[in-house]
């Protein structure tokens, strides 16, 4: 009987220790787990999400010379998810030779972040040496969100005409040739980590299609708009980036197109993400088991 009591005491001490573990050990475990998988990623085949596939299929169906308006509202704070989405979208549009204009509402840093990315991507094989001022323009930052989106919907040319590239207004470039109204754009794609997509739901008046590439945290509140048909498709988080990368690979396989780059952060981050989430689930389970055990032995945590 005293042996049972001793074992019971040891268990209680063990669960007490588990319950009161220093959080810095948890941080270290997370860092080690992620580090191992970032340096030694595991590649797995993908099952594309139907909503992301819907967006890809619509954009892939565009013809050379079509125009797409892009609202790009992410910064390096969400680079892990948003940059992969942005790069995959740019590769698709460049390979399809679709003209685009990028503006931003979220943060004044964004134009300076995306410019070097676009310059680098334009040099990749298959991306048709895209040139700012000829194939695409960056309309820059607009601080008043509501007024800007309303302005774009009512009169796209006058809303962006003050922005310049190469000494001339962006609406005088070949990118805006034949674009007199937002309905001349085949799609508006919003890449965002904040609620700026709501401004488009409220104002677009079905003038053109609306697509969304968002961080995973925003997916819950935006999937209803995909279900109701207000969005033509939605790419969610790093998985959304991976979906686009997989679909790019299906359309332009890297084996058959030497030098083509289809996979970037989307696929790379999937395996560390899986193990990090397993660690999270383990932490939740262990925390609850520790609480339950302490309650059972009368030592409340």
């Amino acid at each position, binding site marked *: 009987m005293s042996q049972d009591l001793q074992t019971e005491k040891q268990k209680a001490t063990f669960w007490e220790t588990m319950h009161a573990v220093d*959080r810095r050990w948890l*941080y270290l475990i997370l860092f080690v787990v992620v580090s191992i998988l970032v340096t030694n990623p595991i590649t797995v085949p993908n*099952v594309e999400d*139907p909503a992301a596939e819907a967006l890809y299929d619509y954009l892939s169906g565009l013809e050379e010379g079509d125009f797409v308006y892009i609202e790009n509202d992410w910064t390096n704070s969400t680079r892990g998810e948003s940059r992969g989405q942005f790069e995959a979208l740019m590769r698709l549009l460049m390979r399809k030779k679709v003209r685009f204009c990028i503006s931003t509402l979220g943060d004044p840093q964004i134009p300076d972040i995306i410019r070097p990315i676009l310059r680098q991507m334009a040099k990749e094989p298959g991306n048709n040496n895209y040139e700012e001022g000829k194939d695409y323009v960056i309309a820059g930052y607009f601080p*008043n969100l509501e007024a800007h989106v309303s302005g774009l919907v009512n*009169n796209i040319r006058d809303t962006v005409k003050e922005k310049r590239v190469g000494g001339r207004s962006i*609406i005088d470039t070949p990118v805006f040739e034949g674009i007199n109204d937002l309905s001349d754009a085949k799609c508006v794609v919003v890449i965002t980590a904040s609620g700026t997509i709501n401004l488009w739901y409220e104002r677009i008046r079905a003038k053109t299609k609306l697509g969304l590439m968002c961080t995973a945290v925003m997916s*819950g509140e935006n999937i209803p708009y995909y279900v109701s048909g207000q969005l033509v498709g939605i790419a*969610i988080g790093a998985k959304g980036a991976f979906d686009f990368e997989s679909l790019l690979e299906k359309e332009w396989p890297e084996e058959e197109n030497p030098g083509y780059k289809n996979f970037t952060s989307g696929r790379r981050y999937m395996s560390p993400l899986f193990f990090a989430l397993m660690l999270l689930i383990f932490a939740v389970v262990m925390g609850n088991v520790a609480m339950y055990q302490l309650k059972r032995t009368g030592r409340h945590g």
Partner: protein
Amino acid sequence: MEILLAQLTVPRTEANLWAVVGYAGLAMLGSALLLFGLSRVPSNFRRPLVGLFIFIAGLLWVLDWALPKATVRRAGGATDSIIPIPVWPYEYDLVMEKVVQGSQVLSGVLLGLGVLSILRVHVKRLTKGQKDWPFSVVLLGSMAAMIVIGLGEWVVNNREAAGIPGDYEDMKTAFSVVFIDMLQVLDAAMFSLIAFFILSAAYRAFRIRSVEATIMMGVALVVLLGFIPLAMAVTAGLPTEGFASNFRIENLKSWILLTVSTPALRAIDLGLGLGLLAMALRIMLGLEKGVAVD
């Protein structure tokens, strides 16, 4: 309207710069005098005055929504030439273009209030030698460096675009270092700290003590795993069609998101939307306290 606009704009040449500066200065002075006059109104007229500004600003957009629109607009070749369509609300669109542009400038300047606030706090800390004043030196120094280098790079880019010869590489490199290798990196690192705190919170605070908590954690688990290809591999053995395919983790996730989560979150969203609409009407009609003068 077109004639009125023509009188309010002046074709620019190299010779008439100072004339134009004079006109703009007059406009500033006139506006300042008008606002000075408004600032002298008795205190019991302040709330109605601010309320009037709010109401007119709101009315502009209400009219934009209510008035019928010309369905087709075509722009001419040059930047500002517009081929008019003989429908009278068309001219209202010209008003709204200027309202949109003006509100961008207004919003931008008001954003500067935040920066001014930071300056006030840290300059005060520095001049009065309060606790942690060396860190205020760091902050103010960083701010000054970014302003000088950022504006310098902008000027340099403009000069290069205008074809003015010069050595611009040093300034461009300095901006690139400060913006890409410092600001962007810090921005990303600050948000990434949350992952650690979430793990710690998951271990210490996520307690499944009720039916609601169990449902929430269970759904979170399924949705999490349904997004990860490695997790999908676990149920990859199930058939892709038929009733059994519903238990594939990605299909389970889709079903939860599309069939249960969507209407639930939609209901919350609708409630929020109705609340926002009611608040907007109250603000426009001056019924909301704390928006105009208290």
